[in-house]
């Protein structure tokens, strides 16, 4: 079954990938800072994400993950620094930069009174692509997610997971070069979570790039090529899983251990280990 889903995904992802004007780096953050009055939410992040990579963005609650993601998506303007998407600076060429992105926020508000299909056409329209090809792609993705029979129902009748699947679909129909996604697995059932992982893989195989933030460390560990850990608005660790293991000086550490160590919560690791050992 997984095989056929992957084939379907490959067919749907046809045409994804860099155009002729492609730059090697898909995403380039240079010294981005976000201040709210005196409070510094993001404090000078520098980051390059090459094309064809799944990049994971981790951090404790309130570390500045969502703020960073919203700046990448063009929803927030950084106080300082620049965000460059596929060679286009978001500040100076917003339309070109944004047309390369598909953004999936964490628990967003949706137009409750539109049907799923109408919402997808609306989103395609915003990207200037409300054409039959987009609709076919949308139908294909909805089918994979078991959502096709719900296409004509109003979004207000959707469950949380169904909304998440609709959003993922909406971010893919205009064939972006970069998917920016905040907490991708929230609300998804195991089957859909598996499909999403496959989808990410196929998407980067075809030249797409994924920037995701998550608290589900197993997912990040399993899916991401490189990982950055952010704390108090600054990146404190960055690299592949092996790089991170070297960093914390522990050969066999899993991401959870690494995360707790670098974010300064080692004692938490012991608590977790204690809980796992106890006879619950």
């Amino acid at each position: 079954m997984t095989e056929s889903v992957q084939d379907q995904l490959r067919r749907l992802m046809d045409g994804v990938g860099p155009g002729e004007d492609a730059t090697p780096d898909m995403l380039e953050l240079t010294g981005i800072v976000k201040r709210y009055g005196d409070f510094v939410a993001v404090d000078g992040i520098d980051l390059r994400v090459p094309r064809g990579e799944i990049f994971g963005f981790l951090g404790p609650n309130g570390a500045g993950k969502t703020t960073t993601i919203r700046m990448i998506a063009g929803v927030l303007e950084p106080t300082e620094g620049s965000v460059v998407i596929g060679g286009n600076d978001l500040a100076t060429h917003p339309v070109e930069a944004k047309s390369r992105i598909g953004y999936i926020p964490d628990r967003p508000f949706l137009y409750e009174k539109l049907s799923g299909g109408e919402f997808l056409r609306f989103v395609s329209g915003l990207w200037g692509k409300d054409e039959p090809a987009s609709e076919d792609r949308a139908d294909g993705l909805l089918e994979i997610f078991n959502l096709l029979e719900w296409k004509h129902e109003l979004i207000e009748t959707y469950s949380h997971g169904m909304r998440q699947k609709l959003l993922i679909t909406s971010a893919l129909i205009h064939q972006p070069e970069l998917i920016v996604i905040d907490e991708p697995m929230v609300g998804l059932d195991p089957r859909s979570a598996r499909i999403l992982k496959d989808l990410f893989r196929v998407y980067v195989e075809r030249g797409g790039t994924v920037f995701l933030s998550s608290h589900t460390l197993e997912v990040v560990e399993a899916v991401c090529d490189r990982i950055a850990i952010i704390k108090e608005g600054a990146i404190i660790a960055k690299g592949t899983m092996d790089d991170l293991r070297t960093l914390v000086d522990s050969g066999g550490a899993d991401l959870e251990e690494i995360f707790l160590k670098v974010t300064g919560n080692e004692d938490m690791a012991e608590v977790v280990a204690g809980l796992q050992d106890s006879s619950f």
Partner: protein
Amino acid sequence: MNGITYTGAGVLRLLGPKVRSKLNRNKTDERRRFKWGLLVFVGLFFWTFIFGVIFRMLLYFRGTQGIGDLLAAKLLGLALLTFLMILLLSNVITALSTFFLSQDMELLVAAPVDSVKLYGARLVETIVDSSWMVALLAIPLLVAYGVVYGASWPFYGLAVATIIPYLVLPAVVGSAFTLMLVNVFPARRTRDLLALIGLFAAAGVVVLFRFLRPERLVSPDQFRDLVDFMAVLRTPTSPWLPSEWAAQSLMSYLTGGFDPFPLALLWSTAAAFFVIGAWLHVRLFRTGFTRAQEGAELRKGEARSRWLERLIRAAPATRQLVAKEIRVFFRDTTQWSQLILLAVLVVVYVYNIKVLPLYTGEEVSFFLINVVSFLNLGLAGFVVAAIAARFVFPGMSLEGRMMWLLRSSPLDIRTLFLAKYWVGTIPLLLIALPLIVVTNIILQASPLILGITTVTMVGVTFAITALALGLGALFPNYETDNMAEIPTSFGGLIFMMCAVSYLVVVVILLAWPVNGFLQARLADPSGGAAVTPLLLGTGGALLITVACVVVPLRAGIRRVRSLQ
């Protein structure tokens, strides 16, 4: 069973979060001093105006020998009856959201709260939400009565004691009506439900006018003689209506022989109705609430029609934006149900024009017809502004929570604005133009006046829509889940003030030179009347209109672009 003696939260505790949210919002608002200052200023202005009008009327009534007090009592009864009708309608609609659609209801229903206390708390909320405007209107009215009759302070205490049960009664009746409707209609058929309420509202307005017969009061010459007139004045509008009891209670005090019976009647009826309302609530609320929770009917895969998108010939983004606006509007009952209020507003307006005692046999002065025509232009403009406040002003606020999508897409905010602008302007034109033409025909205005006012109305509609959309973006309310709250916000007030000022300026700029021109033509049909003032006036009005279209739209676009 396990020794828990939890008695549940009281009414005050249930109301707490609402009051606290309002206070907190106010505390964090940096512009609050300015806002409150302006609100107080505007409030005082309106109060003074209403007080002035009522005061003059009462002085005039007192001057007429014999029937002065009767006329004053009649006027009070009519005002209170109008209030009662407005309160009933507004309570029916408010109760639907406070009791059934409000998002915190789920939490409260799940909590161990006594249903009578919940009823009490929600009733208080319904009364406050639906009645604050009427209560504010009542203050200058009653003060004018107190001042003209030289009443001392106990009168104002009596007024408060009269008004409180007077507000409770329609709230209990209105929410009980809503409760029963929600129970009768299957699932979430609020749409049908509100259509029904609309029918009742329209019927209510007709009944109200049958009761009022205001034209008989202003033209005593239609009665055979004074005795006939007196007889009409003496009969109460209807002895069964609480408005009559309230009027009697207050008038009896003012005219010297205070009669406590009507007041006792008001309080005891309010108390009895509260008990009945609470009983109905305990009996019917759970079923009604459950029904209100049931989702919309599923279509089981049946496709939705796409004629809307096929109809709109525009770039993809604009096409989808316009289609979205129209769909969301018609599928959202809290939005389109306000069309009912709009229909009532228009009916009342046209009716008022129709009963204007302009043509009562004698020759009407040429000047008066002109004045009334331009006044009509201003008032029709006001109707358009009131509609725009309801439907266009909240536009950008409602988009606030979708900004994540709109801003992350390559869409230019300008396109969003223009789509909203056209979706607002065209329906408003469809209302404004028939309104101005019909009222002009009723007024028997000359073709020239008809032409001038109709063309002006087009400009006015364009300007008012732009003001509503632009100011709605400059003073947004992104937090509320209740769209009806947005027009009554501070920004809504600013919009209405701007719209009214704009209308006054345009009407004055046009009416003066047009009247002068027509007078000169009348005096000397062959001679050339001075055209310069006419050109200056029209030019000025045109200039202001263009400014009112361009400036707010630009400012709004800039604001949304810089939004974080």
